[in-house]
């Protein structure tokens, strides 16, 4: 897989503040790569350097074979960018906006096809000011695709949207991935990174503190899996046996919900099921929760993602 983005010892300082402190990573063609981190972690500076919007202080960056500092226009012509917090004139119509932005690129897609793909064709004559938040975001995504880019930068593409719209946008990103487009995604939403990203880099205070596939990162975690059991008859802690590999067992107030923390959840769960069957207890529900990227993130940084 050829690299679409290569970053070596990248640094960015604003006066005395060093926002990016010598990070390294690469993104392969067709990969969805996620940058995770709280506000101020250096994600936006990194992405804006790669988009040609900001100059780096030192280090190397190559994007689609271009130097983002010296070949800004060539680079911008080939990439698609969906920014947070942008706007369009209130009285511009949806299709007009797309046609206008198409005129800025040497190569562009047909606006009708794009609007249909993003389910905006019915709104083609609507003024921007009349669109809902989800429709505006879909238009922003359509605009980032107008030059048929092989590399897309999506900055928090679902922030502030309701769950239904968020799922629609996730499906679209999955379609882009299926089309072998490369995507660099920044997000606050853990489930978004887990669902969409092939690899994730966790940034904190200008550094990459962990990088790998979501599964690799979860496996690196020292955290335990959580088994949650709901039963019809209330339980008491005294009657519960010591589950193999379990680190802790808790019961809720009415004794109908038991939570067991384990390093080897499959074995522990098997023993719990066996015991419940032997006791003749009716099982209402069971959940197994593995450590999430959020857990990994908290372990590595001591912060929550939305700090």
């Amino acid at each position, binding site marked *: 897989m050829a690299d679409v983005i290569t970053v070596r010892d990248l640094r960015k300082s604003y006066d005395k503040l060093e926002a990016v402190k010598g990070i390294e990573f690469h993104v392969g063609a067709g990969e969805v790569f996620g940058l995770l981190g709280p506000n101020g972690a250096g994600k936006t500076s990194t992405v804006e350097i790669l*988009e040609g*919007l900001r100059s780096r202080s030192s280090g190397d960056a190559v994007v689609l074979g271009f130097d983002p500092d010296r070949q800004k*226009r*060539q680079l*911008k*012509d080939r990439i698609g*960018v969906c*920014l947070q*917090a*942008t*706007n*369009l*004139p209130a*009285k*511009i119509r949806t299709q*007009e906006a797309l*046609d*206008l*932005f198409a*005129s*800025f*690129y040497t190569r562009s897609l047909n606006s009708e096809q794009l609007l249909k793909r993003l389910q905006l064709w019915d709104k083609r004559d609507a003024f921007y000011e009349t669109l809902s938040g989800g429709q505006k975001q879909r238009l922003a995504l359509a*605009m980032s695709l107008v030059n048929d880019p092989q590399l897309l930068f999506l900055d928090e593409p679902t922030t502030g949207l309701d769950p239904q719209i968020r799922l629609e946008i996730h499906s679209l990103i999955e379609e882009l991935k299926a089309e072998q487009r490369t995507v660099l995604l920044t997000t606050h939403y853990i489930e978004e990174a887990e669902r969409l990203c092939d690899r994730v880099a966790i940034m904190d205070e200008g550094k990459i503190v962990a990088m790998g596939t979501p599964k690799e990162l979860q496996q690196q975690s020292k955290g335990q899996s959580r088994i949650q059991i709901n039963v019809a008859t209330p339980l008491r802690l005294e009657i519960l046996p010591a589950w193999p590999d379990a680190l802790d067992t808790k019961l809720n107030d009415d004794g109908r919900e038991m939570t067991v923390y384990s390093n080897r959840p499959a074995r522990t769960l098997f023993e719990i099921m066996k015991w419940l069957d032997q006791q003749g207890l009716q099982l209402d529900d069971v959940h197994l929760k593995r450590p999430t990227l959020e857990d990994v993130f908290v372990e590595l940084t001591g912060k929550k993602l939305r700090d």
Partner: protein
Amino acid sequence: MKAYLALIAIDLKLALRQRTVIFFNYLFPMIFFFTFGVFFRARGDVENATRVLTMSTTLGVLGNGLFGAGIRALQEREMNILRRYKVTPITPGPLLVASMVTGWMIFMPYILLLLIMSHFWFHLPWPRAPLSLIAFISIGLVAFRAIGLVVASVANTMQEGTILVQLMYFPMLFLSGATFPIERGPAVLQIISKFIPATYMVEGMKDIMLNGKDITNVLKPVGALLITMVVGFIVGMNLFRWEKEEKIRGTAKLWVLAVLLPFFVMGIVQWVKR
């Protein structure tokens, strides 16, 4: 070229969809036109009719340039509209050119309307050098739009921009002869008026309309307006900012003086001659 044409087309459509644009470009100066017409008894009096035509044109140029170009550019930055353009391969050039061309296209029908109404209502003869008149007004308009764009470039916030525009708009309105005949005012005001760009707009127009001159006979105001236009465009391009977060140093506001420098020189020359 397709980006220039697309931007001009969309700017034009957007302008025509805004009631405020129609109001400030047509109705507002037209109210002054009728008021001045009655006040100066312009009907049948060529000199007064020319004065009213000149005043109404200058008022329109000031509004179109300082508010139409300057404040609008600031609004687009404040509302994060320019930020969306920033991620595309487009440079400030096409955006500024489109702003100039659109401003001109919106303004010219107003001028034609003024000329037609002056002719039929005031019985003002048609201008002897109509092309010179249109060319001169066009240069003036683009020069004032350039001043507006420089204001937008050096102002960090809408508040700052509005203050800067008002600081220019009102002296130009009252001290250039655009709202009352400055030649009848006190000597000190007449001296001050020589330092004000709008004065040269008023004088150049009067020379073409009243004294039968063409554009080659009003080279001083044409030259000053052209220099302002070029300097304004260059400064506007170089100080162009796409995002409201990109702040500019306070000293950069001195660029407004650079764009007004030709008129400062003209003012000194006129003062010394006097």
